[in-house]
């Protein structure tokens, strides 16, 4: 629950929402906790909210490490698993 993952901002929407991509999966998240964000930025994403902007290098290295440790897969599995319960 305390792990944040780096995600790439693809598109901004009204109400400080954005489409982001991590590990090839896209999701709608909130960027309302950040001062300024534009498509192409990497953000640290935690429970659906971008907490912080990170550099491209930091994001890429972290994603690589998380993929190797299996953490990225765990996080993406949670995205998939919870989606169905929201629409139940």
């Amino acid at each position, binding site marked *: 629950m*305390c*792990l*944040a993952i780096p995600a790439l901002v693809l598109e901004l929407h009204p109400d400080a929402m954005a489409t982001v991509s991590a590990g090839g999966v896209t999701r709608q998240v909130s960027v309302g906790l950040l001062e300024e964000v534009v498509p192409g930025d990497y953000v640290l994403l*935690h429970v659906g909210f971008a907490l912080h902007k990170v550099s491209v290098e930091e994001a890429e290295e972290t994603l690589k490490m998380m993929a190797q440790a299996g953490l990225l897969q765990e996080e993406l599995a949670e995205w998939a698993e*919870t989606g169905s319960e929201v629409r139940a």
Partner: protein
Amino acid sequence: MKYVSEFRDPALAQSLARAIAREARPDRTYAFMEFCGGHTHAIFRYGVQDLVPGNVRFIHGPGCPVCVLPMRRLDDALELAERHGVILATYGDMMRVPGSGRRSMLTARGAGADIRMVYSTLDALEIARANPTRQVVFMGIGFETTTPASAMAILAARREGLRNFSVFCNHVLTPPAMVHVLEAPDIDPAQAVRLDGFLGPSHVSTVIGARAYRPLVARYGKPMVIAGFEPLDVMQSVLMLIRQVNEGRAEVENQYARVVTEEGNLRAQAMMDEVFVLRDSFEWRGLGSVPLSARAIAPAFAEFDAETRFAISEKQSRETKSCECPAILRGVKSPKDCKLFGRACTPETPLGACMVSSEGSCAAYYTYRRAETMAQMDRAQMEAAE
């Protein structure tokens, strides 16, 4: 160094390991608490303990949100779902945590309660919008990483006039828990754990900033290094802690400066301050009652407070007998000191929260060190029998 090849930069890992071995003085021990359960897992997954000398020890801290939530609060949440008939939305980590009478959100759901796992408070809001005739309660839990998400949800609910959404608030704060760990020896010598410094949490610190730790480091004279969660970050932070100890310094240092700033996320802090107030005290599993360590929803947002909206009954919740979770969370005991570990209590049949959460110490020992831990338990049992 069997794990070093898995590091992002094996050469750097080896040179850090050599520097730690060179600089750790053999005539003393170093006990560092990694507060955050994420660090506990990085340490185990990458065998960091094996890469440092035996006199450098990690004490696992209470930074696992579902582990420190007392059973009473989980029982209250189950009551909301079962007796008040709400849709209870919760992060997945909570689903298997045992409540009183070995019930859990998962078993309650099996018995008909409407409990839904969500990834985000955004999902909980979506459920509330889609079910205007039902009350939806979000189980708010976690440290300063998840608290802004609950604040944002409450602000959005007010903006939208969403009258069927509320939060059952169990959010806790990191610095007061660290203070409590440091003060425990004075409160009760049986709770004493000797610490030489802290590895500060990664992502909590992106929100509260390095400055949040300065008062407690100044007051208690214990070094603090805010550490990234990669194993190389942890090793470098350990080296920084050893240097502080050897030089007699006690400062807040920021190894994770590529992400954590001095002041943190000011916007998130402002939202938390607007939506929440500090509780006078809050019960933590293991730590007991900790002053000013948790948030409640501010009176101005009372209509979104599940504790105001629903009459939750008084109840006697009892922690699972012989579960050592409380002492493990204080850093006084290790999972091998619990006779349930790996026998009655496994990730499939958890009796205590520390075995359920992926951030719990028992889950880390079980996943990465099960055979070794159980062999140690057998040896201790045989010695006790002799």
